[in-house]
């Protein structure tokens, strides 16, 4: 969509960076006048055909540790390079002696602003280094058993399938839970062996390890003789590792065991009193899982993959009481502070998140339930660790099934799940970093580039991303330090930012991705032209959406709609062309032209209009909003609509109710769902079976086309969107109608042509919105 405005098909390019402003205002004051914050959406390990992988260690600046890059000035005779960030002069080491103007190392090629290094050793744990055997990733599965048999069967078969496709060397563990947590010891051959933890008691990591007999200090496992000497055991000397191997086995070794175990696994046996929810201790289960992984070797990538079938009602992390007459918290409850469990649960998951981050492990949650399961509370742990989340209605639903399958897929479809990522950002002087929104955690690494104000994970120049994948996307908020000394401004018109992402790839290698980007400083005092040209409205819309969501979560009584409106009006006032107080004179530069519509749709979207959704859904949407790339996030804000009809090629249609026609098929992609909507006539034809008649092959093709396109969309997306196939006036049609601009409502239905549709809403239509905007924008403020 919006193709004409985006001439490049790959706006991120090899850098994987999109900024709201590609030309930066010089001063803080100017920056604030720009309304839209200076922010970069980065995709740290974006795959790219041109990406080079260098099998050696990068050269780093000895003062600011930035890595040698194409923007360095190199003195080939003196074998010296000058760091563009701190202007430090660095000598090339011995093995670079042969470089020359014509013999450049790859990292100095100007068309490789991104480059990747393979770090051959494993710095955090040198003793364990074994080049032949990269540490195997760990997959710890957690299965909720408090569900009806049918659901459990779906979940079990999904698990079995997943285990079947795991690489042989992947380490696998399994925990099931209900009222209690059951940790299955897979390395015990005599019989099935399960450690059972009570669901009502919060356990610290040390307690968990102690109880597994894995503690480094507790001698419980060591037997009598070693009891007192236990203190000397260091976790690295192998004993701890030996212990955890009881629970984590290579997939190839435990597949049979796990399968038979899953076969026998039944639903939770603890009785559920009538009128009560099942006692479900998701919190403790996750805590135990995190604790168990704590015994694994430091630096080993691990995912906790939790399949949750309902709300946590027992122990820490509970979100609702077990009494069914007591509904799960709603947004209204949260607003009124009437959710007694909420804060405590949030706190619990914050701590859990911290623990997982310190271990470098990921929490993925696959929730399938009609009720809420507590994603709103878990969000913090999922997001901080870079985990994945999928929210579905049932484990039998394709949203879950196909998504779940995808995480284990190999090859092109692979998500490229990676572990233990660390992002560092170096930037030119005068640039400060406020923080990052997205799946990461601040490492609290202070530096001169840290801004005073914080947005998201801030106060640092380094972030941990326990889990990341090819599509993982972060939003970095920059600030410009108010540089009064404008004298220096003339000297250096260029700014540099370097993103260093080290991570452990899915094949176990340790990589360092170095992306160095450069942008221009512009002096907006002179004119806004440069600024306007550098505006990326999609990125801006997404950034605004992320920021608004963040503020809604963080700030009490934050009125997102007003905030968006105000900003939009300010933006239009600043960058629009108009005569004062003459709305009709208002025009916008093409670089801004789509932005008001984005805002219009954003205001109506699930991100802002949360009351249509449960807190869980909102949390889910926001997690995805924050971690998806700009183009996907844009779709979330403003869905794309394609129309299919006999007389024309499939073409984008206006996201408007007027696009509905009896003889059209519409394909709506709102990211979370993909809707195929048959116009009334089409539906009738189809119901009469014309598509099966040879003479109506065209009709069959017409019917098929949107399905094929939908599959294309679905295939590339994670989580898999919900596919809704519906007919005009059918109940499912609401999935489409909710997204359309209500240009035709019951109030003006008489104006509409036959065969079109109306939406029963009081919402303003885009036209009304734009009218107001123009009026307000031109008002003298």
């Amino acid at each position, binding site marked *: 969509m919006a193709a004409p405005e985006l001439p490049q098909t790959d706006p991120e390019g090899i850098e994987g960076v999109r900024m709201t402003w590609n030309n930066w205002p010089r001063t803080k004051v100017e920056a604030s006048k720009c309304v839209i914050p200076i922010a970069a959406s980065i995709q740290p390990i974006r795959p790219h055909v041109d990406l080079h992988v260098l099998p050696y260690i990068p050269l780093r600046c000895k003062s600011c540790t930035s890595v040698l890059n194409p923007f360095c000035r190199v003195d080939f005779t003196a074998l010296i390079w000058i760091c563009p960030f701190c202007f430090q002069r660095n000598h090339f080491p011995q093995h670079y002696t042969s470089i020359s103007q014509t013999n450049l190392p790859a990292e100095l090629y100007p068309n490789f602003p991104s480059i990747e290094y393979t770090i051959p050793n494993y710095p955090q744990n040198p003793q364990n280094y074994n080049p032949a055997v990269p540490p195997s990733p760990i997959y710890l599965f957690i299965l909720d058993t408090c569900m009806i048999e049918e659901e459990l069967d779906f979940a079990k078969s999904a698990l079995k399938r997943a285990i079947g496709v795991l690489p042989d060397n992947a380490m696998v563990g399994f925990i099931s839970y209900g009222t209690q947590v059951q940790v299955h010891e897979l390395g015990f051959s005599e019989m*099935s*062996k*399960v*450690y*059972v933890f*009570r669901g009502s008691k919060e356990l610290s990591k040390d307690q968990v390890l102690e109880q597994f007999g894995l503690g480094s200090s507790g001698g*419980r*496992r060591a*037997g009598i003789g070693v009891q007192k000497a236990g203190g000397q055991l260091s976790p690295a000397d192998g004993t701890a590792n030996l212990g955890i191997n009881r629970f984590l086995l290579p997939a190839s070794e435990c597949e049979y065991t796990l399968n038979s175990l899953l076969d026998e696994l039944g639903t939770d*046996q603890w009785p559920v009193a009538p009128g009560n929810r099942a006692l479900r201790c998701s919190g403790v289960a996750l805590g135990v899982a995190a604790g168990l992984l704590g015994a694994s070797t430091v630096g080993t990538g691990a995912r906790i993959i939790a399949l949750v079938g309902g709300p946590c009602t027992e122990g820490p992390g509970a979100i609702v009481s077990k009494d069914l007459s007591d509904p799960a918290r709603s947004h209204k409850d949260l607003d009124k502070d009437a959710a007694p469990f909420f804060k405590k649960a949030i706190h619990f998951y914050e701590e859990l998140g911290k623990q997982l981050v310190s271990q470098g492990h990921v929490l993925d949650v696959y929730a399938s339930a009609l009720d809420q399961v507590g994603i709103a509370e878990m969000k913090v742990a999922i997001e901080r660790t870079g985990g994945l989340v999928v929210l579905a209605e049932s484990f039998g639903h394709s949203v879950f099934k196909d998504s779940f399958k995808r995480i284990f897929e190999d090859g092109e479809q692979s998500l490229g799940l990676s572990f233990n990522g660390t992002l560092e950002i170096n930037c030119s002087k005068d640039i400060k970093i406020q923080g990052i929104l997205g799946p990461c955690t601040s490492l609290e690494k202070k530096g001169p580039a840290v801004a005073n104000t914080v947005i998201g994970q801030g106060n640092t120049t380094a972030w941990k991303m326990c889990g990341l994948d090819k599509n993982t996307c972060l939003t970095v908020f920059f600030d410009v330090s108010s540089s009064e000394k404008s004298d220096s401004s003339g000297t250096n018109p260029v700014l540099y930012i370097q993103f260093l992402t080290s991570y452990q790839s899915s094949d176990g290698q340790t990589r360092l991705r170095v992306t160095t980007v450069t942008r221009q400083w512009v002096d907006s005092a002179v004119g806004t032209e440069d600024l306007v040209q550098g505006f990326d409205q999609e990125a801006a819309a997404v950034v605004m959406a992320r920021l608004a969501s963040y503020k809604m979560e963080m700030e009490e009584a934050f009125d997102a709609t007003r905030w968006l409106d105000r900003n939009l009006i300010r933006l239009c006032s600043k960058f629009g062309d108009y005569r004062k107080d003459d709305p009709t004179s208002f025009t916008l530069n093409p670089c801004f032209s789509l932005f008001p519509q984005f805002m219009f749709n954003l205001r109506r979207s699930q991100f802002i209009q949360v009351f249509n959704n449960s807190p869980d859904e909102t949390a889910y949407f926001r997690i995805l909003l924050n971690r998806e790339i700009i183009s996907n996030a844009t779709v979330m804000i403003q869905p794309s609509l394609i129309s299919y009809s006999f007389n024309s090629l499939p073409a984008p249609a206006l996201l408007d109710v007027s696009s509905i026609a009896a003889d059209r098929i519409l394909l709506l992609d709102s990211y979370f769902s993909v809707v195929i909507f048959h116009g009334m006539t089409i539906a009738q034809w189809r119901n009469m079976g014309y598509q099966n008649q040879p003479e109506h092959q065209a009709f069959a093709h017409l019917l098929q086309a949107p399905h094929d396109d939908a599959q294309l969309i679905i295939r590339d997306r994670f989580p898999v969107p919900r596919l809704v196939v519906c007919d005009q006036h059918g109940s499912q049609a609401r999935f489409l109608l909710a997204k359309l601009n209500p240009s035709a409502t019951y109030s003006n239905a008489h104006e509409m042509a036959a065969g079109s549709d109306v939406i029963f809403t009081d919402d303003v239509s885009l036209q009304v919105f734009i009218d107001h905007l123009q009026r307000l924008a031109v008002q003298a403020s």
Partner: protein
Amino acid sequence: MAAPGGPRPGNLPPGYMPNSLANNMQNLQINQPNQPQSNNPTGGVSRPPNTTPFGQQPPPFAGSRPGPPPHSAFVRGPVPPSPSGPPQTTLSPNVAPARPAGPPPGSQPPPPFVSRPLPPGSLPSSMGGATVSLASGSSPQLGPGPHHRPFVSSPPMSGPAAPHPLSNGPPGITMAQLQAGPRFPPVMGSTPRPPPIAAPQPATMLSSGSSSQRPQLRPNFGGRPASASLATTHPGPSSAPPQNMLPPPAPSPFSAPIQSVPPPSGSPYGMQTWMSQQQQVAPPPPVPGLQPPRMFGMPQTHPNQSLAPTSPSLFHTGAAGTAQSKVDPSHIPRPIPSSVVILHETRQGNQANPPPPATSDYIVKDTGNCSPRFMRCTINQIPCTVDLLSTSAMQLALLVQPLALPHPSEEPIQVVDFGESGPVRCSRCKGYINPFMKFIDQGRSFICNLCGFTDETPRDYHCNLGPDGRRRDADERPELCKGTVEFVASKEYMVRDPMPAVYFFLIDVSTNAIQTGATAAACSAINQVIADLPEGPRTAVGIATFDSNIHFYNLKRALQQPLMLIVPDIQDVYTPLESDVIVQLSECRQHLELLLESIPTMFQNNRIGDSAFGAAIKAAYLAMKSTGGKLLVFQSVLPSIGIGSLSAREAEGRSNISAGEKEANKLLQPADKTLKTMAMEFAEYQVCVDLFITTQTYVDIASISVIPRTTGGRVYYYYPFTALSDPAKLYNDLRWNVTRPQGFEAVMRVRCSQGIQVQDYSGNFCKRIPTDVDLPAIDCDKTIMVTLKHDDKLQEGSECAFQCALLYTTVYGQRRIRVSTLSLPCTTMLSNLFRSADLDTQFACILKQVTGEVPSTPLPQVTEQAKNLCINILHSYRKFCATATASGQLILPEALKLLPLYTLALLKSCGLRADGRIDDRSSWINYVSHLSTPLAIPLVYPRMIAIHNLDEKELDSSLIPETVPLSSEHITDEGIFLLENGEDCLICVGNSVNPDILHQLLGISSVEEIPSQFVLQQYDNPLSKKLNGIINEIRRQRCSYLRLKLCRKGDPSGTTFLSYMVEDKTPSGLSYVEFLIHVHQHIQRKMP
């Protein structure tokens, strides 16, 4: 449901198994260790033939043995009573006439030797034999006669007493007299002199005996004239005994002693047989009418006798040294076990009949009072005032064993179903209807014998009274004519449905347990026992193992194999599953067997040495909480981790001697209250814990035993556990534990007539309110001591009743109330108290009280207390009942003449010795707390027999050879001796034993080869068969498999053996003779 009037006994519910108790006896497994497996299913049945007596029906019984067979035996007894030896005749005049029925026992002395034969006539003979032996024994040694006799004198006492046969109705007086009976024989034995002495004098000679008579006499005379009945009691005890006695046993014992010339033992045996005989005296229904007159006459004779004897008392005030020399150890009182079966009617002539000694073999006929097995009182007459009781210095207490095993020949307890309305009870005190409730006003109301309240008879229960004032239907209604009945509990006695039988096994699998084979032994035992668990759809089983974690097992049938569920949080435990941890037996048999077989191998390489015992039982309890049930724990090491973990205090105590000395008894107290609190909780939810401790180390029994004690279980202690010899015992203990008669979720209360109230209960139970005791489980072995106190005067001539009501659930899930009522006469006469004292009960009571003090009081004080208990009683007797005797004499009440010996034994017992291992002492203390009366005596005064000469003895009737006094002088180098105390069985091999015998008995060729671990095997030779027969008989009697151990003189095991020789002088203890002197001196010091 039907008529509330109460169905008749005939209407027993189908499920009821009145005989279950008896039948269960057969379940006591007596396998030879070498063939434990095979016996398993049939165990009960497969008992070696010899041991069968009980198992079998009366007929065989009678044939093979001295049949207890009631009537015929009795009847005959009287018939034979032809005038016997001269001595007797002297007596007989007095006695014989008194009772037509009772043949003068003494009379037959001569025959005994000749007549082993079964004929009843032989019985008397045996008696005679005894007497002879005594005489012979005494005569040689006691040159001068008089002095020695004092001891001997006991017989004389009996002599006088004897005349009043116990047998006869007149209940109160009997005791002393009975004993007197036996004495006669001795007299007879000493043929030369005795005759003269015999009649009147013998009595005099026996200090104790004489004294006892006196009291009796007084009551008779001084007493109310009305009490003709009393008088009757006196008559011819001697005569009666023979009747009751079963012929065979008696002879053998006697014969042996006789042969050995010097045999000091001779006399004791004689005495004992007598004693037992007397008691047995279930006289053939003599015509009461005739007797009374004579009775009167009798008393007179007694006084004379009793007075005369004063001279003989052994102990002169002289220096101890001299005294010693004068005392002939062979003539001091010793217990003489009798294998004669006594027939005991609980009431005769509307009088309570004093029960036979608890240690004897008897058959009870419930004629109104409950069987003494269920409840017996330390004194068979109740002092009317508290002053009288305190003067006597005796204990007043009941020993209650509500589910005691009956003799197989006894009638089963009848079950009465009152339907929905439940049993008739007094509306004020809630006492249950019993034979002593008096119906008045044409049966329209009844007077409660406990509180005296007059209740209206429920309409449905009304019945007219007969001319005798009894209800016409009294004899048809068990609750009106039997001392013990069981009522079917109605709804109001249930707070929930009766619980199913639930058994949860908890097994230690820590390194130590695995390596010592304890785990394997436990698993194997459990596996075999599963077959013996009560059949029934509700019987459920669970299993768990533990080391530093707790492992439960899901036994659900649907699973392919059991699933192990580990509870790792041992500070705050929980159960890992709501259901399926405890599964109905019928559904999990296969899994269970599979699991039990695999546990030992599964943990084979377990390196975890820690034990989370406390947490494990807590977790198991949580799993059982919803139903309650039995938790059987197999524990091998000190609980070192988790809730209720303990430290090796013993070692700490050792390393810090000074502190240890000061607070030695602290180690016998629980370390803290955690386990006690847990135990209270267990009890509340009806979980009973039994501990099987299979260990080589200190496990702090003092602390952990709190749990079984509070929950109605017990500690089984296998130290040091050996995989060779202990598994068989473990298995048998376990088997008995689950198969013996028992009940669950029980509540017990004892009610007393006005004037007396319960002071305290002691035993293994949980007490929440003062009046009741809660018993998560109660079985036939558990005894509860109920101490009593006066809160008012009792009416002389009235009777005081005690009623024990036990509400429980059978293993088959029926709710029952077992009610035992005992009504005893009240007396104002001190002498009556002494005469009616029940030695065994009295001592069991002392034993329990003293033992109870051990953990809380420094040892010297405890021993002092024990001694004083004995001394005070004897002193009281000496002061008030034997005033006429010279002060230089030690005079013992006949009934309590063994009290000094038992007291001495008690002082030397494991629990009261400071040198023992702490755990041994704790275990002993615990064992005592629930010990039944019949087992209390052997515990402190074990039974020792010689087994090297088995082939010389004809053991056709009685399997157990005569006992040997516990004195090392009897242990010869050529001999092999077997000693047993109900738990342990030591076989001591002398250094110069005939190798052939050794080989035949034990399968080893020389003393040097004695193995440290011993497994009894049966070899194909008569000696070995006899030995096995004997041991099996002991096992049967004790309901215990016994821990067998070989000892050899000269090495540590021999020292252990010698430590049981309580009559010896030891570095820290007096010899028996010395002790008597010691006691005597104390008494004298107290005398004004």
